[in-house]
């Protein structure tokens, strides 16, 4: 008799893709891209093309990839 393994993690659980949200501290324009090694929340990445203020990583999170 083969019983399911008790409490085994849900195999249907979907794998999350890690996204990094970059945002200008002044114009708040967000830009979403996939996570790269070295990304840290609140890290300054450069200057905004529109207003020359700092672009900062505002969030890093995991999300199910959207189906095309």
């Amino acid at each position, binding site marked *: *008799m083969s019983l399911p*393994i*008790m409490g*085994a993690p849900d195999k249907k659980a979907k794998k999350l893709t890690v996204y990094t949200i970059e945002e200008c501290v002044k114009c708040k324009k967000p830009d979403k891209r996939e996570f790269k090694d070295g990304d840290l*929340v*609140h890290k300054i990445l450069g200057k905004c093309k529109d207003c020359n203020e700092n672009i900062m990583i505002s969030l890093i999170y*995991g999300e199910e990839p959207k189906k095309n």
Partner: protein
Amino acid sequence: MDLIFIIGAGNTQITSNPILNLVIIYLPLALLILYGQKLQTWLITNDLSKTVGRLKEMRDKSRDETIAHITEGMDNKEETIKRLDSFLEYFTIMPVDLDPAGVINKLDHIMTSRDMRMKSEIQQLFPDLDELKANSIENVIEIATSFNFVYKIVRHFYLVGKKTNNFLLLAQLQMIIPFLMLQADALNKAMATFKKNQPIGDAIGPMIVGKLMLEHDKHDIAVDTVYAESDISGRKAILVTAKGPAGTVGQPGNAVQELINKENPSLLIMIDAALKLEGEKTGEVAEGIGAAIGGIGVDKFKIEEAATNSNLPVYAIVVKQSLVEAISLMTKEIAESVDTVHDIINRIIEERTNPDDKIIIVGVGNTIGVIQ
């Protein structure tokens, strides 16, 4: 053959043949009465053996991943692997609590010594590592140690139950296994996140307070803990959190105790991740009263005592999440609660304090992947 069902008072028959009736009904009934528990024990043992096997697989995988992470680009791996195996067997002896007076100080001393020893041993093993990588190694080793511990405890009770043929012991283990497997799954997911220095669900407190600290001078106040001063609605806000982006929870207890004595604030606001109940939504924000801080209780005790002595109200804001979510990669729902919590902080400050008051705001949690 004609099957006739005759169900009468005390006379259950399937066929008209009495011998066949005996074989089909009465023999299995007698066997189940006599050997039912043995059969159940066999089924549970069989099931538990698969679970223990799966836990062993997970434990071995976590050890291999830890070795791969810490020996990356290293020539002499053998010595490091030997040291790692001794780390996996590290234990902490809790202080005696027969006389509970002063047990918190003893607990604090033991846990601080444990952390310091771990840090210094890692520094000795890898003297050239930067702080972020050294902390990542420390966290990964702690996960592998927890895995080893969970596996050894489950295996112990499984083997004792099997050896003594103790149905009740095995049944109790069977009942608790789903929760232990959930923890094992959480540790499994945490390993990948800690290796890449990505924020975990528990980092939401430091993330919320860390955002308020940006562009303000940070000062060390306790081990791995910083504070900054800011102005919120005309009040002096003293912001406290663990020092990121390394994975640490710092010592918020010591920091808050010192700040309460030094600054005499009129309000203390604590922000933390809280375990949600099944059915509650991840990322939901809730407000309450009391010290919002987990752990073994040392920091909570210090904060409660300092707040009580100063008659200081303690407000709590929590972001709800499951155990797995708290120690694995932060999800979108949790990350997007930052602005909601900032709005609540502003409302509490405006409603509950007066201009020029001093407020302490503490972001509790592991600050991995978050800069202040």
